[in-house]
């Protein structure tokens, strides 16, 4: 009995860790690229986006996992999308009510969570085949992995574009008497593509070194 519960805890831990690195949605599976590139000009919106995705991912995984035995194969994608869009509507209304400034900044990218491939991929690959507990843990792992990646990417970009992280000035800007010349391109689409491309290259090097 004890070994049974231990083995189960092992599975849970493994599922959680898979989302953080081994199957990291952005760096490894290349899923959810659009929000990754679009909201990472600064850390704050990236973090908000990550939280929204975690909420939607967990809720939709719960619902999909509960109704997995009722699903008809040809209607399942439709059911997933409808479930997801319901929770995205909730998240969107919540942001509009409590953090209107952030909601304005993220703009259409909040409703675009509906078509974020991560969520539909987890519903299809995990929640529609596994029980409640595994699905929830998988959702949290994937969501946290996504949020961390977003924050790292946003951190690099914000630092190079404005010399600040989380709106706290770290590097002294040249126009205020310091030495750092703000790199405006990093805050623009170019910076997003370049940084993510180099980051993926770095991840490839690291993971190759391990095996």
């Amino acid at each position, binding site marked *: 009995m004890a070994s049974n519960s231990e083995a189960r805890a092992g599975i849970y831990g493994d599922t959680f860790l898979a989302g953080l690195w081994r199957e990291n949605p952005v760096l490894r599976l*290349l*899923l959810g*690229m*659009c929000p990754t*590139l*679009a909201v990472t000009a600064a850390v704050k919106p990236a973090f908000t986006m990550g939280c929204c995705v975690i909420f939607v991912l967990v809720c939709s995984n719960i619902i999909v996992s509960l109704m997995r035995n009722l699903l008809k194969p040809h209607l399942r*994608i*439709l059911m997933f*999308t*409808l479930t997801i*869009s*319901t929770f*995205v*509507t909730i998240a*969107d*209304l919540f942001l509009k009510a409590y953090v209107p400034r952030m909601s304005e900044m993220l*703009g*259409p990218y909040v*409703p*675009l969570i*509906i*078509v*974020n*491939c991560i969520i*539909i991929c987890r519903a299809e690959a995990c929640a529609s085949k596994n029980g409640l507990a595994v699905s929830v843990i998988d959702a949290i792992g994937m969501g946290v992995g996504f949020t961390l990646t977003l924050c790292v990417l946003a951190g690099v970009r914000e630092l190079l574009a404005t010399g600040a992280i989380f709106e706290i000035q770290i590097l002294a800007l040249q126009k205020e008497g310091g030495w750092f010349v703000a790199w405006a*391109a990093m805050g*623009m*689409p*170019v*910076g*997003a*593509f*370049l940084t*993510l*491309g*180099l980051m*993926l*290259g*770095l991840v*490839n*090097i690291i993971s*190759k070194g391990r095996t």
Partner: protein
Amino acid sequence: MHTLNILIMGFISIVIVNNLVFTKFLGICPYLGVSGRIDMAFGMGMAVTFVVTLSGTLTWLIDHLILMPYGLEVTRYVCFILVIAGAVQLVEMYIRRFFPSLYDSFGIFLPLITTNCAILGLCLFINLYGIDNLVEAVVLSFGAGIGFTMAICIMAGIRETLDMADVPACLKGAPITLITAGLLALAFMGFAGMIRIG
């Protein structure tokens, strides 16, 4: 004449100046996935153009004729995604019936047009810009599709040549594609400010 002017400006603006792929990061997944060969990229672009024109028009009609008069804006996202899923189903049936070889080479990417952010994104942008004219909505949706086709074809052309290039091992595949896309975005930044909407 004035209306026509607005329409042409809007079209050029959405195709070049505000290209969905390079300035709004929409539709990146198929952009990275299907841009390996130029004929497939073009087929994908055409499919997306059709779906986006259809769903852009339909969502505008639904939004203005049903949702707004009855105060049902809360269900907007659910309705939009239903329309898009239906349009994609239509295209999928059409391609399977008339272009079976193209259908096979698309594989999973065809149903995935449903989750192509460019399409839902465009429907949301039409709503966000407050376009209150059906013709403008149609032209913008069509232009968005053309812009996507252009972006993905440019990329496919570059990638076909890139196969011969000596790329560092760690950057092969997605990373170099992203970096190339970054340089393309830089080039397209030159158009910024050429036309202003509104």
